[in-house]
């Protein structure tokens, strides 16, 4: 029983980590909180439902559809909501926050219009398959989710550390102007960052759909909030922090459900935000100066 809950917590946590990576990438490079990330995540989940249930496509094709949709949404987000604010004089630091809130509320209500307000089930061919290892019962879905999440996380950190594009992205995160002087096409890097972050969000959407077997237009908000809590927990713009923070939140939520207070599960993220801001505002892996003004 206990080890099953640990596995549930790790599965959940690995999804949260993927969501949080999207926030962290954009914050790292652009220094802004992308409030629309949760809605793009939700759209990815719906694309998975539409592809598998309505068109009867296999799961890998569903992933492809979600990736393409989320990528397009990320591109539009950058071009329509973020780029017009960049480099403009007299724009307050709240402007990108408000602009992305606008995108999020638009997408949420668009999804309600297109897909309806209710729950949509997300069925996969192996959703009922489970293994017995010793006394522990593991669902195949959990393994698939964990493997995909792990591939994404490892792939992203390898890409960031080993490839030329990854280095350019890290240079842009360090200092946009200096990177530009050194010959990095920062405009392209920024667009790419938002698109990659959105794609991670779209994939996470499908993973959540598989894990909970349900997709709603409102899931973007609660998942977005958890992603934000995680990046505060792990340290803003820190990739390792996002992964560790995601696992911590996943395990903490599972622990709360185990004690029977499942209704208050969504409150954990908020409690985590307040505690970490009181105790260690820069996050677990953050540098001390970052959180200050």
């Amino acid at each position: 029983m206990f080890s099953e809950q640990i596995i549930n917590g790790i599965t959940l946590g690995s999804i949260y980590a993927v969501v949080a990576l999207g926030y962290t990438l954009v914050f790292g490079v652009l220094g802004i909180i992308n409030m629309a990330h949760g809605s793009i995540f939700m759209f990815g989940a719906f694309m998975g439902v539409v592809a598998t249930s309505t068109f009867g496509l296999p799961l890998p094709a569903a992933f492809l559809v979600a990736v393409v949709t989320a990528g397009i949404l990320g591109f539009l987000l950058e071009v329509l909501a973020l780029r017009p604010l960049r480099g403009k004089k007299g724009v307050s630091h709240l402007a990108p926050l408000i602009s992305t809130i606008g995108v999020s509320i638009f997408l949420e209500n668009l999804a309600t219009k297109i897909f309806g307000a209710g729950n949509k089930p997300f069925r996969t061919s192996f959703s009922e398959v489970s293994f017995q290892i010793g006394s522990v019962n593991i669902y195949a879905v959990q393994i698939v989710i964990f493997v995909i999440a792990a591939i994404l996380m490892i792939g992203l950190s390898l890409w960031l550390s080993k490839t030329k594009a990854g280095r350019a992205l890290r240079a842009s995160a360090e200092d946009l102007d200096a990177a530009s002087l050194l010959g990095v096409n920062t405009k392209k890097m920024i667009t790419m960052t938002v698109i990659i972050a959105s794609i991670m969000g779209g994939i996470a959407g499908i993973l959540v759909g598989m894990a909970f077997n349900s997709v709603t237009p409102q899931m973007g908000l609660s998942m977005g909030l958890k992603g934000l809590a995680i990046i505060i927990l792990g340290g803003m713009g820190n990739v390792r922090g996002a992964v560790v923070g995601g696992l911590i939140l996943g395990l903490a939520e599972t622990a709360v459900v185990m004690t029977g207070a499942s209704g208050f599960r969504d409150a954990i993220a908020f409690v985590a935000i307040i505690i970490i801001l009181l105790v260690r505002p820069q996050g677990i892996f953050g540098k001390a100066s970052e959180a200050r003004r």
Partner: protein
Amino acid sequence: MLADLINPYYLQVLTFILINIVLGLGMYVTLSAGQLSLGHAGFMAIGAYASAILTFTYHMPMIVGMLFGTILAGIFGLIIGLPTLRLQGVYLAIATLGFGEVMRVIFVNWESVTNGAVGMSGIPNLGREISSALRDWGLQASSFGLRNNQLSSLVVFILLLIITILIFMFFRRQSQSRVGRAFAAIKMDENAAEAMGINITYYKVLAFVQGAMAAGFAGAIYAHITGYISPSDFDYHRAIDILIYAVFGGSEVIWGPVFGAAFLTAIPEFLRSIAEYRYMIYGVILVAMMAFRPQGIIDHRVLYRLKRRRQAKKAAKREKEVS
């Protein structure tokens, strides 16, 4: 004659406009110190539920419930504001977004007190309360030539109009005082403000708590006017509503949120066909405002022009009289 002019439906729309103006003013004062709060819906919920529970479950007088709801919202604002406002602006936005969600979760799950997702109904009605008080003084609706529901809508509207004007005057005077200048300095540049000797955490918390109290008060009034509240009345959409009053109307001058709240509350009432797409339009408005007019529709320049036009008219009139 008077009876034909007073339409309870229009009075209700006007009353909601006033509530939204109070909410918009709460958002304005927080924004005027350069802070973005997404938790005003949560503070509104605290005010509404606190007042509803005190008056409905414990049969307290309505004024006690409203004051308690307002103060409780302020206390929660203090609890959220103190740890987050020492940090960068984004932390407050995230923490308040989480706060709004957590309040909703609590009101849904705390069923013994709040009746859960179903919501509370039968909350004492402000209009009825005042009408019955008037009746005790010997003032009947018929003595004004009005029906009962007309009288109650009318007294609620007048009372709320007076309160709204008082709140407006308070924020207006404050914005021209030492406190308001401190807010403006922090909004411009926190580091420079701090270097000038302004205690920026104190003023940011002050602005935020004032906004929370305004939202709490609006929530309490809302509960006693509609008579029914549920957690879904105070969800993320409500937070967006409150935000857009100030962003659309303008967060630079105090007339901005007044205009934004009045305009955006009235329009969906008269254009029913677009009401369905309201939040999609709001999303487009938020993005477009940030790109093209971040200070909102009403800014210093618009006010200045209006003032000049009025002065020019006056001058022309005077000239005519002289000649």
